[in-house]
């Protein structure tokens, strides 16, 4: 096994995490924002897998399993919220959701 793979995988996960975060800041479509968050979760998953490999323990993979479940659940609720909101606002622009502020 290449000793550099684990740290590089972690670095990649980091990069993906940051890219995902940037997506949250920069994209205005709420679904894209949501997808960016999914990207972040995937980045975390990669880190878990890498660390799991590093420690030779499977707990990390179990966690990935749960994260996927959570992602699915979040996707369901999140998209339902998006649907409901779209009914009111007829837009998916996150900047349009600024009734509450101050």
């Amino acid at each position: 096994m290449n000793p550099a793979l684990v740290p590089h995988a972690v670095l990649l996960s980091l990069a993906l995490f940051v890219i995902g975060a940037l997506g949250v800041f920069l994209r205005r479509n709420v679904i894209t924002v949501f997808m960016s968050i999914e990207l972040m979760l995937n980045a975390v998953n990669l880190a878990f897998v890498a660390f799991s490999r590093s420690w030779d323990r499977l707990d990390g993979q179990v966690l990935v399993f749960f994260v996927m479940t959570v992602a699915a659940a979040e996707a369901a609720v999140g998209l339902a919220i998006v649907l409901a909101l779209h009914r009111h606002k007829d837009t998916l622009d996150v900047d349009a959701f600024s009734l509450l502020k101050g």
Partner: protein
Amino acid sequence: MEDPLLNQLPFLVLLLPLVGFAVLALFGDAIRDEETEARKSGGQGLAFRLRAEGTRGAMLIACVMAIGSFALAAWSVARLLALPADARFYQPSLTFDWISVAGFTVPMGLLLDPLSSVMILVVSGIGSLIHVYSVGYMGHDPERVRYFSYLNLFLFFMLLLVLGGSLPLMFVGWEGVGLCSYLLIGFWFKKESASAAGMKAFVVNRVGDAGLILGMILAFSALGSVDLLELRLGAEGLAPEAFGAFGPVTWVCLLLFVGACGKSAQIPLHVWLPDAMEGPTPVSALIHAATMVTAGVYLVSRLSPLFALSETALAVVAVVGTATALMAATIALVQTDIKKVLAYSTVSQLGYMFLACGVGAFWVAIFHLFTHAFFKALLFLGSGSVIHAMSGEQDMRQMGGLRSKIPWTYWTFLVGTLAIAGIPPLAGFYSKDAILLGAWGAHKPVLFGVGLATALLTAFYMSRLLFLTFFGRFRGSHEAEHHVHESPASMLVPLVVLALGSVVTGWGWERLHMGEALNLVLAHAEGHGAHPSWLPVLATLAAVVGIVAAWYAYVMSPEIPGRVSAAARGLQRVLEEKWGFDLAFDWFAARVVVGGSESALWKRFDAGLIDGTVNGLGRFVDAWGRATRGLQTGLLRGYALLIFGGAVLLLSYLLWIRPA
């Protein structure tokens, strides 16, 4: 030798007027103002009759209490005199203290000795006469019950003042008489000037009282006691270096003298006394001439052993007294209000007494106090009789030629005038002579000279008063002339009694060797210098010159005063403005104190600065609160960025900045 009764009698002397006051004050309302009632019931009916009887009864009670007090006082004094001279000290005391904290104790204790004997006789004696006089003078005032209750209260406090065995207890009487003075000056409270004068009197007196309080405190701190007798012991026990020119004893004396100045109307605290003439005339006679205003003299004399220890204090007393005497006499020259003349005369005479104190002749001060009480009360009551006759008019320019219309008044007034002018053998001659002698004997030629000049001025302005009022022709309206009438007996009897007193007291005092008796308790300079025989002659001459000059100017050729004042307009202005004291006080009170407090302290500092700071702080916080709302843009992406930024900062902190 002991006289156990003397341990109780002084309290009874005090008690009677207090009871009188209490009865009149508590039940006064029920028997007040029958005139209103009369209007309601048309002067008929039982209620009205009862009320009328009630007011009469109230006056009776007041007079009885006053006279009873005098009788008890006389009895006490008689018993005291029966004792050998060195046993004439009684300190009757109640079983409980007034104040008692950590070594500072003020017992409810009195002091009866020759000095207080003289004082209680004067106070209760003249007080009784004035009570009687008031029955006539105030007999138709709707609020006479209130008047008599105040009068009784005054008597109580004045007696307490002179009987009090310690400074604080004396101070109770001291402020008490001030209070009564305030109440009585403002008795006709509907009159703006009357209530203003009352207030002025109290406030100016308070200045002195503050000095007196500080004096008491310093006395206790420095001398270890506030008991009148122990004070002297404390002073004598002090180390010699404590008697420097400005040692504690001096300061005690000076602070106490500030109090005396307030009460006895000495420069610069004299301004209240002339205004105090707003009160009913009997009040002026009793409080503002015979008794209360002499309290300062009493205080200084009472503490004469202390004052005698401080050259500085004596000098200050003498100078202030003399200056006051001269200044007041000059002002009296131009007054047109009959009572104002008498008021300034009182100020002047009080200055005379302080002059006596200041040269160390304390018993002489008391002597003059004694004689002055008679003739000045007489003059005031006489003027009251005149005013009564003139239906309230006080301006001498509206009078004249009253000699024949009110003869009793005239004759008694004449006696008083001669007495105060110092014509032998009347009372004033003896005491004034003694004062001048004291000044001369103390080798104070300047004081002596000024005193002599003042004597001349006194004779002049008093004669002016006499001539303007009783001589010449009537200058008022015809109607007023028609109304002029002699006063009732209740007013005339006191006049006569006082006139008699004015005649005999000087002579009697000498005969009874009262001075020697007093010197047992008062400090006195040993071995006066020569007793020059020319001195009485000179004094009498001054008086005669004054009288003659007045006669010339006001009876012989009445145009002279106009010419003189035209020639000396500046001086005239100065005198009419009373040397500017009132103006200065008014300016200070209205502009500096009130004006400054309002604009600078209250509006600018309190509301502006302090409250502004507090409210500003509130606004500051509030503004920040509004500012934080800006952070909450409502934009989701912003929130996420905030979280991310927070995370970055947090991690940076943990990595780089955290403490090692």
